[in-house]
């Protein structure tokens, strides 16, 4: 994300380690940092989660209300995903409306959820063309140490899975769990000096040439991808990352339950 100036010394250090097949924190190239997932952390939300990947920490809430559907999908609930890179999380984040980084982040997370059809939006229709459930998935980054795409995606998925549709508060019968069809998992890797590293830390992101995020569903099929940063990837590198994403995705999926 924010490209603050990294000292040449640090850059050289990371490059040298990678050339020797090592990472700064000693992980294998396809190894995630420690992942922790808590759900139901905020009781004013219909669903919520607090996720840490290493020192990157996010909190995600799902708020649901009843509103009008879009005219071209009259019998489907509405999903809105927003990400806030609040200045608490990094010396390089600033207050203000979403910038291109938080917009890209929110849209990539959104696509993973939307394109996998994780939420069965047709089950969130109250009265076709008139009333449907509107889902606000709001992501706040609390501490930023790299790989926001995966942390936010995981947080959103965990928060959605924990959500209870507040039907009774709207006079629409009993509350029921959010209708879920699958669990999309995003895995991000970067290319540095032609090495591929999964779950980049902030230091690694800052020297990376290119990034690829791959979101897979329970079958290991592709649901969303996003290449980022100002460098290139070969088709072979892309295929390596896709294979790794499918493999690691199925492991991480177990953590979400």
């Amino acid at each position, binding site marked *: 994300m924010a490209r603050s100036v990294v000292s040449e010394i640090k850059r050289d250090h990371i490059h040298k380690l990678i050339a020797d097949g090592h990472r700064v924190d000693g992980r294998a190239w396809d190894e995630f940092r420690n992942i922790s997932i808590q759900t139901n952390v905020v009781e004013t939300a219909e669903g919520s989660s607090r996720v840490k990947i290493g020192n990157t920490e996010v909190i995600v809430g799902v708020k649901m209300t009843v509103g009008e559907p879009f005219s071209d999908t009259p019998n489907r609930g509405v999903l809105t995903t927003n990400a806030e890179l609040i*200045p608490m999380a990094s010396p390089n984040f600033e207050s203000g409306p979403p910038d291109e980084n938080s917009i890209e982040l929110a849209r990539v997370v959104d696509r993973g959820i939307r394109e996998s059809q994780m939420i069965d939006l047709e089950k969130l229709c109250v009265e076709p063309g008139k009333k449907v459930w509107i889902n606000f998935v709001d992501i706040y980054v609390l501490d930023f140490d790299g790989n926001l795409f995966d942390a936010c995606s995981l947080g959103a998925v965990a928060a959605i899975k924990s959500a209870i549709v507040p039907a009774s508060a709207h006079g629409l019968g009993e509350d029921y769990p959010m209708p879920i069809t699958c669990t999309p998992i995003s895995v991000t890797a970067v290319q540095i000096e032609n090495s591929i590293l999964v779950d980049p830390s902030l230091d690694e992101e800052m020297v990376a040439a290119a990034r690829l995020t791959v979101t897979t569903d329970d079958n290991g099929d592709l649901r969303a991808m996003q290449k980022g940063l100002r460098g290139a990837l070969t088709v072979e590198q892309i295929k390596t990352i896709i294979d790794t994403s499918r493999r690691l995705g199925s492991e991480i999926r177990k953590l979400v339950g």
Partner: protein
Amino acid sequence: MGGNSDMKLIDENGIRTDGRKVDELRPIKIEAGVLKNADGSAYVEVGKNKVLAAVYGPRECHPRHMQNPAKAIIQCRYNMISFSVSDRKRPGPDRRSVEISKLISEALDYVVFTENYPRTSIDVYIEVLQANAGTRCAGLTAAAVALADAGIPMRDIVPSVAVGKVNDTVVLDLNKEEDNYGQADLPIAMIPRTGEVLLMQMDGHLTKAEFDLAMEMGVKACKEIYEVQKDALRRRYAIVNGESEEEPMEEPKDEPMEEPMEEPKDEPEMTEED
């Protein structure tokens, strides 16, 4: 304030709906040093309020025209996250949060030795994760601990609490239900040691006598909160200095690789005897 509601919020034994006495605080929990990037941070729970505070600075002041050549400026941003309240709040500042941010900035300015860091900014970020009445007080309480955790020299830590009135009775530390149906709200922040009041607002209806009682209650409660703040900093200090092995992940911050000569982070510094 909802005004003179008929809703019964205190029973015949003087016990409130959540079981508290009229001059009793909600359970309060404070943890210092909970974030990695921030120079200082704190997490506070007061009843069902959950608040996070982070401090960055002293650092270069942006925009430049806000720099003060004589001292640091304190810039606080109080924010409620969108899902911290029953109806989703649109992200971004509203008029209420702009006012609260201003008042907390002013209150903290008094206790920080801002003259030590001319031209810089000390930025305080308060995020309300879950709200249940009294979030500005919980936020200020957290911010003061985060400032100390950041090693910023301060006159003293600042506790904050609201006193209110429900069912014609002055009560301490309103919860959400009491706030909704109450008759007055009086948030204060002060330095318990000197009796100096740094933040005070009031709305509703208080006679002069009720105000005097409310202040008395508030001053006493601030002293209690102050002890919890100091306790959190003592625990944090112990961890940072390796006196505890309970939470091995809470190490002192990494030194930046390019500045190997930097001193280890100061322990929280205060003018009073600790």
